[in-house]
């Protein structure tokens, strides 16, 4: 069972890496917000699975806090980006 948790851990880490590359690449700002949201969800999963892997299920409190913070943070970011129409929506460049 421990090796299965390790495999799931590796899969979640690979997913986090891919979300990270999309956050760095993504041409529009909404790609990056989407990638950050996915990264937060994967962090929740990583902490939960890592807690079971090392036999410390107390980490689940932290996973719950992360899930809440991630949601609130994404909604806050979207509220702010609704009020600034400074950059072009297609790319993240300021029109000169």
């Amino acid at each position, binding site marked *: 069972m*421990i*090796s299965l948790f*390790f495999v799931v*851990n590796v899969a979640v*880490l690979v997913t*986090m*890496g891919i979300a*990270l590359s999309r*956050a*760095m690449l993504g041409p529009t*700002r909404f790609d*990056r*917000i989407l990638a*950050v949201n996915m*990264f*937060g969800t994967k*962090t929740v999963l*990583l*902490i939960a699975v*890592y807690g079971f*892997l*090392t036999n*410390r299920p*107390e*980490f689940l*409190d*932290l996973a719950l*806090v*992360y899930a809440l*913070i*991630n949601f*609130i*943070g994404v909604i*806050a*970011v979207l509220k*702010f*980006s*609704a*009020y*600034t*129409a*400074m*950059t072009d929506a297609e790319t*993240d*460049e*300021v029109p000169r």
Partner: protein
Amino acid sequence: MPEVTVELFVDIVLFSFLVSIALTIARIRNLFVAVMLSGIFSLLSAGLFTVMDAVDVAFTEAAVGAGISTVLMLLTLDLTTEQETDPIQPQIFPLIVALCTGGAMLYATQDMPAFGDPSAPVHQHPLADHFINTALQVEMHVPNMVTSVLGSYRGYDTLGETTVVFTAAVAVMLLMRGRRRFSQPSTIDAEPEEGVS
């Protein structure tokens, strides 16, 4: 699967993510992207704290770094422009200062005891023994020793810290009240939306 290699593997992967994010934040010119990436940076470092068994520090890092700090930076970004101005010339002197400081700190870490070494000076202090022996059974009856130290044995420290954080929050709110917007609200929001306060 020996536990040391699992923890080492997760540590290596998370730290490499951290380094790549830091490099990207240093290179990118758009400040909104930098704020988003610093949010991920805080999430990652909180994950690293969890792997190192410091769950209370990870709580604080998650709430402050990934949540509040990102929102405050976005508030600040609302006051100013999003594109960072180009530097005039390559800055050599700050680079040298940063390298010297980093090198001095790396040299100083050679003298530190190993992580978790029981013969380290911080573990030899008699107060550590007192906290460990009496915190659960005798005095506090709280299972988490860190909580009992933070909440009761060093309660004045915690009082000072919460005062500082409260003052900072009040100061930020006072500063944000009289701001002038550089941007126009987008035209799509001109008609009233349902359910938006």
